[in-house]
Structures are given as C-alpha cells and as structure tokens.
C-alpha cells in the first residue's frame, strides 16, 4: 500500500484487477492500430530528476518518465496481472522455486545503439543495492531485508536467486529499470550517481530500453518523447512498436486547468489519470455530445484512505484519550459513520463503501469474510456505553467516567479530498455524541506532527503500488515503517499484531495462491476485528481520454494509461 515500488506484483495465476469495467462507447482500441502520429499527455508535477533510482525518483513524474523510456527484465501486465517476458525472453525455475535462470532477448540495443548485455543487468543491481546510493528502489528488490543474488554465467544469461522463499517471485524484477552501464558507470565509480541524469542533463543523451526517448525538456512547460528506433517489442502482426512517433507531456499543475485543457482538446490523456468526482459531469457531457472525450470506468480503486489511531505507547498514557486504545471505541466509530453519506456527498456517488484496507478493486486478495461495519448508530452507542462513554449531563455529547467530554483530533491534509471526508466524519460522529476537532495542515507539517506523535487520529492514504500483500509488509508487519498506528515495533505490542505478523510470514512463503489467499483472508479478519485503522470508502476510478487515443489499456495502478505506452496509437 505504501508507495515504494511502481509495479503491480500479482501472481501470474491472478485474475485481472479490473475485469468488470464498463464503457459508454465501444472501446477505441477496436480500430486497427496505425504507426505514426503523436499524442499529448498532461503531468501534474515537475520531475525532480530523470534518475528513477535516487531520492525524488519515486515521484509520479519521474515514475512516468521511466515508464516511457526504460524497460525491465520482466513486466507485470497491469490489466491481466500476468508476468510477461520483456528484456528476458524466457526463464526457468529451480525446483525449490528460488533460483531463476533468465535468457536475455537477442539483438536488443539501447536507444543509442549499444547492445544490451548481462553486464548492464549486473550493473543495475549493483547500483540499486549500493548503500552509498541509498536507492529508493532498494527495499522493493529485497526479500526479508536481503538482496537478491544476481550472477551472469554469460553475456546473455542472468541467474537470480531469492534469499528466502518469496511467493511473488520474478514479479519483483518489474521494479528495476535496466540501466545502460556504458553511460552511468563513470558517474557511479566517481560516487556521483546521485547527480547522474538530473534535470539539467541534456535530453536525448540518456539511453534507455523503453519505447520512447526523452528528447526535450522545457522546465515548467513540457517534456517531449520521441520513438526509440531500436525498441525491441513488436506487435502480433510484426510491426515494430511503439505505434506513436512521439508523446509530449504538458506540465499542468492545476487540476482545474488540466480539466479545461481536456475539454478544449489540447490534451489527450492525463498521466495521473483519474478524474475528480466534481469533474465528471462536464466530461460526461462532452462524451455524450460530440464524443470528443472517452470515459472509462474501472470500478473501485485499490488504494484506500484510512482513519488510523495513535496506538503508540506514548499516546496510551495521554490523559483523557485512553478510549482511543480500546477496540470497542474504534468499532463504534466504524458503525457510527454512514459510509453512503460520504459516497453521495464527497464523491457524488462515485465511490464504494468499504470496511477494510483491501478494497474489492483488488480482486485477487479482497476477502469477503472480513468483519463488516454497516451503519448502526444503536450498536455504536451500545459499544461506547460498554466502555463507559455515555452522555452523563444530558448535553447530547458523551462523557467518560471522570465527566470529561469524549473528544479527539483528526489530523489531515489541507485542501485535499481527504479533508472533505473528515468534515463528513466530524458531522457523523457528532450525531453519536463524539466531538471531533479537525487539524488540516500542509503535508510536511502533517508528517512532522505524525512523527512527533502529536495526534489522536489521522486520515491519510497511500497510493497502491502493488496489489500483492507480500509487497506491503511494511504496512502489515509490526516492525514495518508504514505500520502507521504504531510503526517500527521491536516486539509486537499486542497479541493480534503478533498474529498478523505470523500469518504474513506464512503467506509470503506459501506455495499456492489459494493457500496464500486463505492466510491473507485471516489477516484481514484479525485486522477488521481490532480495527487499528478504519476505512470508509474507495473512490471509483474513471479515466478520460480524448477520442484520438487508441489502444489504451487503462489499469487501476499508476501510470494508469501510460504503462503500456508502446501500444497507444492515434485515431485520426
């Protein structure tokens, strides 16, 4: 759940993450792809670097650029969830499932014409694991905090050994772009890898294995990508990809301006593609009118915002807030919130009520057996009364045994849809007599208050970068850095956290998908019973593309459309 890796890691057997999408017109990719032409995308933020490995490389801008210009050994298809051959054409697996022998595709060259060899693969792994580089990708390429062992018996073969059994297996490799050793070796040797491929590097000079080459960058304005003439992938009929001659990305910071440009036809697709609910209406009119815009609905998002409570030891001793530590209190809150109210107001109906952090959008891993929290004020009131929180003075608000009003603070992000959800929560909890104060801050102030433990509850969310729970251990394990309600524990603080730890360890190493699903369903059940974090809704994802965009394969994970940029084509 935590944005660390930009890949979907789903077992090859997994079912499509987004099977049930509905479209209001026959899909545009029904027409025949033609080579040539260009499309315009929008990008909401400026890249801080073109180097995916360094800090700042995990921004959505750099991620999208890397998606267009680089390639990986294998690729996880964002729509079907299957592992597809990429730079590695085929592979074999050892009987214990831990050693993979990959054969590199023959005749692949970087965009500057230099042939790809196993040395480039070794180099890329060496850099990403180097503690001096402190790569943001390192953790996503480790199993139980240990790196993969990578060797190359010859220039066309790479052998990869996992340090421990790890169910997602080869899908890990989708995280690492294979870098051109001939270009970056010097900088790496000089200890300057951090500064290599920064935003002042002349565009066009950076070689890659992706479908496009970055050929222009006007800061604050646009990025231009041109076809990589040496790109290795061909379509079913043997045409060399990509279909498009070029893609340009216009930097548009304001989502309002982005929408206007979409309406005016000056952009074809959005890199951070999902629409805000309030923008839906105007685009829908366009889609139904002259059909200039094509809307694709993908169903519930896989990343959910959550309200978690400060369950650290330090918080437990704070006066007047001890109720937060009680599971009954958290369950009461979950019952007290009418999720449909959030759906119909904040999301204008375009959201799905949920009860846990794994949303129905994550078809492989969502468990229907996790506890449900239907809107039930009577039950909420009873649960609160059971822990001594009742209205003692008839003012309609609850008081604890000492007569102090039940009041807690929700920390959230200013000027964000999350803040709007919290505004609804506040009103709903007032109905059951709980007073909520909202502190809406800018992101870094918020993170600082979080780090200092200066909050009772917080409403925030993480962008899903992986659907597979084995890749979200930092959230599930009590030792994890994203175990937000009480992060980085040396020993599990509660029995149920210990139970989740054990289940996660088992499920990560389990052999079959059904076994893993069963174990993870247990995790979701234990989580739902203890409710350290409450989820309310998952937005429904809608993606807008102009009528000129053909071959789009929208997926729920970012970059939702550009992940398969080589197959986009222009409808004239």
């Amino acid at each position, binding site marked *: 759940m935590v944005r660390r890796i930009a890949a979907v890691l789903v077992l090859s057997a997994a079912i499509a993450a987004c099977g049930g999408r509905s479209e209001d017109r026959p899909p545009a990719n029904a027409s025949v792809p033609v080579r040539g032409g260009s499309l315009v995308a929008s990008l909401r933020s400026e890249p801080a670097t073109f180097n995916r490995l360094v800090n700042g490389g995990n921004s959505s801008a750099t991620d999208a650029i890397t998606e267009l210009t680089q390639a990986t050994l294998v690729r996880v298809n964002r729509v079907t969830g299957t592992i597809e051959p990429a730079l590695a054409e085929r592979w074999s697996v050892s009987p214990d499932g831990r050693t993979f022998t990959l054969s590199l595709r023959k005749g692949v060259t970087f965009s500057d014409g230099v042939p790809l060899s196993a040395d480039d693969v070794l180099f890329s792994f060496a850099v990403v694991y180097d503690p001096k580089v402190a790569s943001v990708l390192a953790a996503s390429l480790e199993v139980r905090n240990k790196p993969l062992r990578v060797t190359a018996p010859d220039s066309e073969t790479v052998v990869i050994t996992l340090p421990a059994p790890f169910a997602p297996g080869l899908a890990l490799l989708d995280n690492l772009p294979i870098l051109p050793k001939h270009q970056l070796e010097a900088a790496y040797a000089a200890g300057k890898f951090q500064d290599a491929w920064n935003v002042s590097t002349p565009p066009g000079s950076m070689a890659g294995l992706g479908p496009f080459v970055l050929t222009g960058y006007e800061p604050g304005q646009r990025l231009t990508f041109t076809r990589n003439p040496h790109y290795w992938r061909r379509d079913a009929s043997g045409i060399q990809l990509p279909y498009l001659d070029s893609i340009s990305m216009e930097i548009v910071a304001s989502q*309002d301006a982005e*929408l*206007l440009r979409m309406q005016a036809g000056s952009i074809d697709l959005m890199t951070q593609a999902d629409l*805000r*609910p*309030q*923008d*839906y*209406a*105007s685009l*829908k*009119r366009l889609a139904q009118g002259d059909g200039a815009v094509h809307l694709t609905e993908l169903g519930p998002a896989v990343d959910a915002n959550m309200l978690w409570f400060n369950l650290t030891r330090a918080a437990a001793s704070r006066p007047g807030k001890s109720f937060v530590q009680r599971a009954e209190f958290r369950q009461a809150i979950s019952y007290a919130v*009418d999720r*449909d*109210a*959030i759906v*119909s*107001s*904040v999301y*204008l*109906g*375009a959201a799905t009520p949920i009860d846990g952090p794994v949303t129905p959008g994550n078809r492989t891993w969502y468990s229907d057996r996790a506890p449900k929290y239907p809107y039930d004020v009577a039950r909420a009131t009873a649960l609160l009364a059971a822990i001594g929180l009742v209205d003692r003075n008839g003012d309609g608000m609850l008081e604890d045994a000492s007569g102090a009003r039940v009041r807690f*603070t929700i*920390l959230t992000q*200013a*000027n964000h849809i999350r*803040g*709007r959800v*919290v*505004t*609804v929560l*506040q*009103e709903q909890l007032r109905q059951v007599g709980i007073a909520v*104060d*909202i*502190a*809406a*801050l*800018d992101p870094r*102030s918020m993170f*600082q*208050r979080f780090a200092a433990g*200066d*909050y009772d509850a917080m409403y925030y969310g993480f962008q899903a970068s992986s659907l597979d729970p084995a890749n979200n251990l930092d959230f599930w394990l009590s030792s994890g850095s994203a175990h937000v309600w009480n992060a980085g524990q040396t020993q599990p603080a509660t029995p149920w956290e210990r139970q989740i730890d054990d289940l996660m360890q088992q499920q990560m190493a389990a052999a079959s998908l059904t076994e893993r699903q069963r174990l993870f369903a247990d995790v979701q059940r234990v989580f739902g019973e203890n409710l350290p974090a409450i989820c309310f809704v998952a937005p429904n994802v809608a993606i807008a593309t102009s009528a000129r965009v053909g071959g789009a394969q929208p997926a729920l994970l970012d970059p939702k459309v550009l992940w398969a940029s080589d197959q986009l084509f222009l409808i004239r």
Partner: protein
Amino acid sequence: MSTARRSGLALALLALVVTVAPLAAPHDPARQFSRFPYAPPMRPHLFDDEWHAHAPFAYALRVIDPLERRYEEDRSRRLAIRDDQPVFLLGSDGFGRDVLSRTLAGARLSLGVAFAATGIALSLAALLGALAGYAGGRLDAAITRFAEFVLVLPAIYVALALRGSLPLVLSSGQVFATLAVVFGAIGWPATARGVRGIIHVERRQEYAEAAYAIGASPWRVIVRHLLPSTFGFLAVQAIVLVPAFVLAEATLSLVGFGFAPPVASWGTMIEEVGTGAAAADAPWLLAPVVGMMLTIVVLQVGSMSKSRLRDRK
C-alpha cells in the same frame, strides 16, 4: 441626506446585518444533507399548483444523477422552510450544507477578521507613514526600509513557521485573533508608503506651516492637520484590503491557519469553489463573493464622508 449621514447609516446597517444575520439563517450552517450535494437554489412558494395557500414552503428535490448533479423538482412534495428539511434557498454546497446559512454565518467571522485586520493595518500605516513623511531623514529611511522588509517577506512563510509552533488544534477565537493580528501586521506597508507620500507634500503646504508658526507641537500638526488629508487615500486602501484579507484566510488555510471545519467562513467557502471549477456548474457557491461586493459598496459609500473630515483642518 448628507454624505456623512449616508455613510454612517450604511456602516451601521452593515454592522447590524452582520451581527443579526446569522440568527436569520434557516439552517445550522454545519448541518449536512449528504444526499443533496450541490443542490440548486430552491424557490420559496406560498401557493401550491392548485393555488392553495400554505406557510412558506419549497418543492422537494429529487436526485436524478448525483455525479452529473442533476436534480428535479418534485411538485408532489412540499417541504416547510425549516431547519430539519433539505430546503436550500441559495442552493447547497458539496456537503449538502445550506449556502445561505453559511454565507450569513461566515459574514460575521470573515468580515470581523477583515475589518479588525484592516483597522490594525491602516492605523499602523497612518502612524508609521506619517512619521516617515513628517520627519524625513534617518527615521524616514528606517521606516521605509522596514516596510520593504515586511512587504517582501512572504507572509505564507511566516504563517507556516508560526503554525508549527502553535498547538495542533486552535479554537475559532484563537484563529480569529491570530489572523487579525497577522494580517494587520503584514498589511500596512503599501498603505504606509502612500501616506508617507501625502504627508511629505502636505507638511509644506501653507496651512501646516501656519500651524507651526502659531506654535503647535509636531504631534498636533500631524494628527490634527496632516493626517486628515490622507483619509481619502486610507478609505480607498480599506476597500482594497478588506476583500484581500477575506481571501487571505483561504490562502492561509493551505498551511492550516484557516477556520477549522465545520466553521463557515467566506474564505474557506471561496476556496472550495476554486478547487472545483465548480463555479461553472454551481454558480450559487459564489454567494460570499456577492457578499463581499456588497460590503465594499457599503464601504465605498461610507468613504464618501471623507470631505466632512477634511473640513476640520
């Protein structure tokens, strides 16, 4: 009616409206009718379709498509204009809250902050500007340089650092006081420069020289003779500053300095319009802007009394 009378009346009326209006609000401004986000304004009726008279009522709304914000009037259901009914005379916002009630409730807070801050800013400006313009020399230079420093130091930086040192939760009263003081403290320099320019010229006019000659103290000359000549300018500045301060509250909410939900203020209401291109689909959300226009029209009318003040010199 004389201009003085007119302006006094206008300002008194404004104060009255601002204090009394929230009492007239049809709804609790925090009340959310979640099923009716962005509902259009509903017309109040006294007679139904058959011309039967009723207590004031509105026809109920039926949601056709929330995502496309389509509503239909249900002529078969009459709703009384009461707190517990989803009747929105000026439409509803994205939470299904009554825009009219929020605009009325927000007037007191937003205009309160803006007027208090304007008062502080103009007093500082008059004082410092007059000192600079009158004294000249080193004092002038020092004040002018200081004004430039305050002008150029981005207020949002100060606000961000200040917010970090304050408790996580601020009450509305604390927000009100902080905003008024912060805005007042950063709002004076531009005005002070103008005041300085006027005083600099005025102090060489015959009347000022004459006042000296008869032995008036410098302080008396400034306050009794020179400052009145800046009143017209100050009035114009007030017209500029009041809406600017109302909007500044919205900007500062970005760093967590605005009024926290569910409190209604014009700044946060306008901020919400801006985040959604919503103005095109739901123009009634701009009600606070209309309120602001009315306010500065009143201010403009009020400022016409300046000639009366100048007559005293």
